[in-house]
């Protein structure tokens, strides 16, 4: 940390393009953020490429196949209490749950910087609980589709790649959510035990970056896989 401070004490303060040039050309640390935050961003950029590979691969098989693509709006319809099937209803609920969890996470970061530990921990636990419920719904969705005969190599309604894309993309995203829930629980516990009282609460923001990224990926999956 003393390393950080000695570097930032003489840091350039210009903003915009001038600041950009100063940050890169000065003979010192480029990113004027805690190293953990810079590293989380580097990780998220690399993770962006992984998810992009999946989504671009999905686009390619969907364009190339001459077999009809199954209608997502019908595949993911669900009847609730014996109603007519409501299109995409569970996916919509999952989307709202993830947005809600992003909101609670943003508030947790805010209260962390206000040093309100109790609210920070409660909001992080709420975020983790919402994330866990998201994973449970995803597991339900998988179970339902598997029981209807969707497999990575085929399905009853059209192009076989539908199943492989569905299981790979939502599975990889679900894995990220699961990892995020564990990460949140670990950090929330450490916050409540006073680990960061002296170090500062950047760690909550770093955890938040990961969580918002998981929500961000879902925005793209929701649009490209479920809606288009």
């Amino acid at each position: 940390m003393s390393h950080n401070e000695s570097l930032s004490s003489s840091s350039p303060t210009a903003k915009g393009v001038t600041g950009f040039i100063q940050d890169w050309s000065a003979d010192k640390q480029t990113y004027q953020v805690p190293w953990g935050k810079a590293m989380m961003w580097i990780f998220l950029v690399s993770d962006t490429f992984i998810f992009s590979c999946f989504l671009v691969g999905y686009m390619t098989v969907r364009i190339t196949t001459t077999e009809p693509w199954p209608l997502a709006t019908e595949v993911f319809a669900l009847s609730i209490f014996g109603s007519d099937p409501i299109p995409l209803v569970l996916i919509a609920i999952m989307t709202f749950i993830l947005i809600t969890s992003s909101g609670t996470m943003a508030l947790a970061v805010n209260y962390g910087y206000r040093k309100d530990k109790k609210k920070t921990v409660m909001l992080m636990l709420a975020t983790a609980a919402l994330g866990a419920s998201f994973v449970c719904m995803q597991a339900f969705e998988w179970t339902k589709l598997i029981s209807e005969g969707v497999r990575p190599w085929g399905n009853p309604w059209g192009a076989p790649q539908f199943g492989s894309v569905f299981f790979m993309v939502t599975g990889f995203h679900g894995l990220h959510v699961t990892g995020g829930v564990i990460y949140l629980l670990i950090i929330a516990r450490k916050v409540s035990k006073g680990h960061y009282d002296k170090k500062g609460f950047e760690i909550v923001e770093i955890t938040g970056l990961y969580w918002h990224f998981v929500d961000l990926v879902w925005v793209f999956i929701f649009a490209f896989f479920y809606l288009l």
Partner: protein
Amino acid sequence: MASAEGQQHPLGIYLKIWVLLFVLSLFSYMVDYLHVQGSLRWTLVLLFMALKAGFIMAIFMHVKWERMALALTILGPPSVLLLLIFFMAVEGNYTESARVEYFGQDANQEPEHVVHH
């Protein structure tokens, strides 16, 4: 130095963006629910998606308030993906046309309707 105290902003902006994200999600769901089809569907879904992604990154992930050196590190490399998307779309269309032309496959089949039980 701003980053020593971290990203501190009034609560109100988070709450406003939160509500906005809900509304945008609702809009994109309504596109499907109301069976909007064709190019209007694509336009609306992509528009709401871009707005949601933009607000999450700019406000919730604080990119709006970061120094340009970090913001461009985050946004620069992924923007090259647009080229990959373009190339793969061109290549994909070629593959599909080859399958139609040389293998006689029918690219205009209707998907089976889904019956849940």
